[in-house]
């Protein structure tokens, strides 16, 4: 039995009352789900709220769950819808409050500490360049990349979750990959052209 079936089986067992099965499932997917949400909404507080909302929906439907697809597809499908619902709520609030929901997040909510500009140097230039490039992608391209990387999903599953055709999903992923690779290559190139003395660590 592969990992896909194991996750589905764990969910079915949880539906029958086996709470330990949920714990295994949760441990396996919590990090990926959180990173998907955090990098989609770019606001840790909002990401935490959505994280709880997604799991609460999973828990609510445990008795009706049917293992018709990979558990990750099921989980990220819920996450996708929670993110869209949240965006709509922000748009409604923006209409009432006069701020731009698509604008940059407020400074205090740009991301967790390791993604803040003042701390980014600690985490390596290439890593931050990649995450910065990811943050700059259009939302649908970023989502396609995150569903692939964090959810481990294939192009067909990404298409199903985002309600687009397979070719559209492929195109989004292709653009995302091209931009991210070019950001990485640029970082490598800059590092190679730095004077040797600045690249050497002090003894």
């Amino acid at each position: 039995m592969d990992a896909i079936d194991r996750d589905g089986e764990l969910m079915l067992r949880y539906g029958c009352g086996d709470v330990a099965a949920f714990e295994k499932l949760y441990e396996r997917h919590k990090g990926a789900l959180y990173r998907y949400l955090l990098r989609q909404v770019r606001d840790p507080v909002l990401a935490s709220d959505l994280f709880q909302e997604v799991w609460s929906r999973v828990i609510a439907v445990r008795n009706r769950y049917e293992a018709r697809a990979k558990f990750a597809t099921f989980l990220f499908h819920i996450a996708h819808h929670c993110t869209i619902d949240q965006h709509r709520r922000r748009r409604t609030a923006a209409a009432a409050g006069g701020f731009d929901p698509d604008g940059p997040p407020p400074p205090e909510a740009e991301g967790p500490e390791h993604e803040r500009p003042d701390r980014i140097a600690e985490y390596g230039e290439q890593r931050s360049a990649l995450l910065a490039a990811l943050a700059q992608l259009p939302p649908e391209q970023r989502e396609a990349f995150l569903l692939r990387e964090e959810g481990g999903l294939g192009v067909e599953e990404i298409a199903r979750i985002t309600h687009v055709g397979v070719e559209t999903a492929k195109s989004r992923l292709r653009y995302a990959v091209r931009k991210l690779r070019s950001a990485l290559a640029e970082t490598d190139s800059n590092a190679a052209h730095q004077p040797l003395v600045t690249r050497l660590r002090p003894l």
Partner: protein
Amino acid sequence: MTLPPEDELERYLRGADGLSSAYRRAARPSPPQASERRVRALAGLDRVRRGVRRDLAAYAACGLLALAALLSIGSGTRPASPPGESPQFMHAALRTGAPDRARDPSAWLGRIAELRAQGHTAAAAAEWRRFCAVHAGCRDELPGHLDLSR
């Protein structure tokens, strides 16, 4: 004839272009603990933990009670009982080397009669109840042929 260059998406999906590994090397934040606690509470995981703690507390309490009972028996702090009713005797009378179902009924009845004959009425009655729990068709009272005091 030359093959067309491999599509960059296919290379990426095969994990051959290093982008996935670069992403995996990037920071991998975890959900905040407060969120984790709420999800666990929703899922019932905290109830399981509390249940385990409750069980452990119950086992500990049982152990302490048993220890206290043994100590009080050993030190004789309980009020004096008639010779046949003393806790030590009851314990000895009830102790059997084998499960009740495996005991020889004739020998068991003989033991009950013996207890009765020695004046240990409460112990005899307790043994009789145990005998009846295993063998159907008993009455609650000790049968007359075992009641040697009559």
